[in-house]
């Protein structure tokens, strides 16, 4: 079973603003990019026989989310996104040291014996102006390849 924690800032996200500004002011996407959001995504693989996954997700969130500045949404196995934007997941295809460290700390220091693996990624939410003739997924693909990833260490995936 996979527990997904989608985490986003309640305060303004400076990184998202910088990426948006770069796309609009430096890379010519002013006419197609209406807005841009960002979420961190933790996907935590746990034993299938976990009794109360919702409670477990809350306990994970207590460790991985700072609720003074962040909000989160938990889901089991599948991810569901709202309409109105293209969610682009970006993660490392090389070894992710932070994900490994998080897995080891959850399991060995914090007592979450049921954790089998941890994946960490960023979901960029591209709010695109749909009045143009171009396919939004085509634009999102272009943005991902031109800015959001370095293909020598990252990969991307459209989640909707």
């Amino acid at each position, binding site marked *: 079973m996979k527990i997904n924690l989608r985490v986003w800032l309640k305060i303004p996200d400076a990184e998202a603003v910088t990426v948006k500004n*770069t796309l609009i002011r430096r890379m010519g996407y002013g006419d197609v990019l209406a807005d841009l959001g960002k979420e961190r995504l933790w996907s935590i693989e746990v034993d299938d026989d976990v009794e109360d996954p919702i409670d477990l997700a809350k306990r994970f969130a207590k460790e991985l989310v700072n609720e003074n500045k962040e909000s989160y949404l938990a889901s089991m196995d599948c991810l569901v996104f709202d309409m109105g934007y293209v969610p682009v997941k970006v993660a490392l295809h090389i070894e992710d040291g932070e994900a490994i460290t998080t897995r080891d700390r959850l399991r060995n220091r914090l007592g979450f014996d049921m954790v089998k693996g941890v994946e960490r990624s960023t979901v960029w939410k591209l709010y695109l102006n749909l009045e143009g003739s171009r396919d939004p997924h085509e634009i999102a693909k272009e943005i991902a390849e031109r800015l959001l990833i370095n293909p020598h260490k990252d990969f991307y995936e459209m989640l909707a």
Partner: protein
Amino acid sequence: MKIAVIQFPGTNCEYETLVAAKSAAVDGEIFRWNRPAQELCDFDGYVIPGGFSYQDRLRAGAIASKEPVMETLREEAETGKPIVGICNGFQILVESGLLPGVGGVDAALAQNVMVSKNQIVRRGFYCAWTTLRHDASRNRCAGTFLIEKGELLPIPLAHAEGNLVTADENLIDRLNEENQVVFRYCDEEGNSTPDYPVNINGSVQNIAGICNPEGNVLGMMPHPERSNFAWQLPAHDPAKKGGLGDLDASGPGRRIFESMKRYIEVRI
């Protein structure tokens, strides 16, 4: 002769880099990223110093690589002017495709992964003195124009993402064949072994610095401006024996700036 030291938001080594350049008798000034980029054409060479441009948002160097000054630097590089990228400057040059400069974006500088005896012993930010072996021939690269092949330079580094990786399985062979690997991490005798602490960040084949095929663009993770004066060397270094001595005495890092100066003189 005048060089520009490029300052992006978050750059934090521009002043000492300019001091180092001036100590090598190279005049220069700090060039803010939001000045008209065309003003860069008035300079004879460029240094992109270390720091955390744009707070490393998205990826180290990714946002700065899209700034108009980088497009102008690309044009100036095509005319043969020298560019040296140090630490974050190296990351910016890689993200912009100026290094290794054989296609588009050909590589990445990923998180440090220190490996010893097949075990990962450490990851992430690291700050230490290291020894660099100059593996390019003399005159191959603008930033090491005066340095002989095989010379050793003690220079400190401080970074979290200096681990050169590439998805192109032929790239490293090509860099070796074309003499584009300028510096490798080694021990004090000049031996490059793949384990930490000699290979201090896990970089493929101990690579610490590379140049473009033309040799006028150099990127290196260690900070030569931090060993520009002899007094900056660590206490255990023999060059420092007997106290600080002459405060203007040069350290090994100055060779980079002296090389750049000589390259510009020859080119002019």
